[in-house]
């Protein structure tokens, strides 16, 4: 129960954080006279953007929550939650970022989510042993 509650919070924080970051970076790029051609010129502006700070804070919260859960839960259990994150992020982008998501892109998003679940659950079949690869999670904090 504790695990589910924390994971839900982590997913919400990650998805909304992504939206804030995307919004913030595009605001900065469009406000800059050089657009996004000179990345280094964008960074001083990035530091002053409250939108980016909110996004970053949300991603840090999400990261801490995931790291906490990973200290007791199996990765093959935690990993599939990432697929919810992907769908939620795309839905929020569609809704709040003025990025109309085409049916083809939705299809791609769903395939990715199913793929992630299959990859995550395949660890259970091979048992606990020999799963060095299981130690490769999809971390938060992107």
């Amino acid at each position, binding site marked *: 129960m504790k695990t589910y509650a924390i994971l839900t919070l982590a997913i919400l924080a990650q998805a909304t954080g992504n939206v804030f970051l995307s919004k913030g970076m595009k605001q900065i790029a469009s406000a800059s006279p050089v657009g996004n051609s000179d990345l280094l010129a964008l960074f001083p502006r990035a530091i002053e953007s409250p939108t980016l700070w909110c996004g970053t804070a949300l991603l840090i919260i999400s990261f801490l929550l995931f790291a906490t859960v990973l200290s007791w839960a199996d990765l093959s259990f935690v990993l599939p939650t990432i697929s919810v994150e992907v769908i939620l992020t795309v839905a929020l982008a569609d809704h709040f970022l003025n990025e109309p998501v085409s049916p083809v892109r939705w299809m791609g998003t769903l395939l990715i989510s199913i793929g992630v679940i299959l990859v995550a659950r395949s660890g259970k079949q091979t048992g606990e042993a020999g799963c060095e690869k299981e130690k490769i999670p999809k*971390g938060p904090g992107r």
Partner: protein
Amino acid sequence: MKTAVMIAMIVLADSAGDVLITKGMKEVGEISTIKPKELLAIARRVLSNRNFLSGIFFMAVTFFSFLTVLSWADLSLVFPSTALVYVVSALGARFILKETVTFQRWLGIGLVCLGVVLTSLP
């Protein structure tokens, strides 16, 4: 093209960060307290763990690459594409660590690849 390069960088740095952070957190052990004093001690142990710190470095690379690419690309393209990290880790497991990758996992990897292709179509 520029977007593809950035996504590749995000995926590679993310895989590296994930492995190192997982390793570090497992070394630190389960966090099962909310007492501030004990939490502080745990935080100190986490922050002095070398794997964890290297993981954080890669996470920072991931984060700044992510920010950069978001200054021009769609979030609904970039974020789903970061799931390619599974493809990278499975290929690494199969060809570097010589592990067996189950059929179900190959299937999942195939779906992720197909999904990223569909996502990136105009």
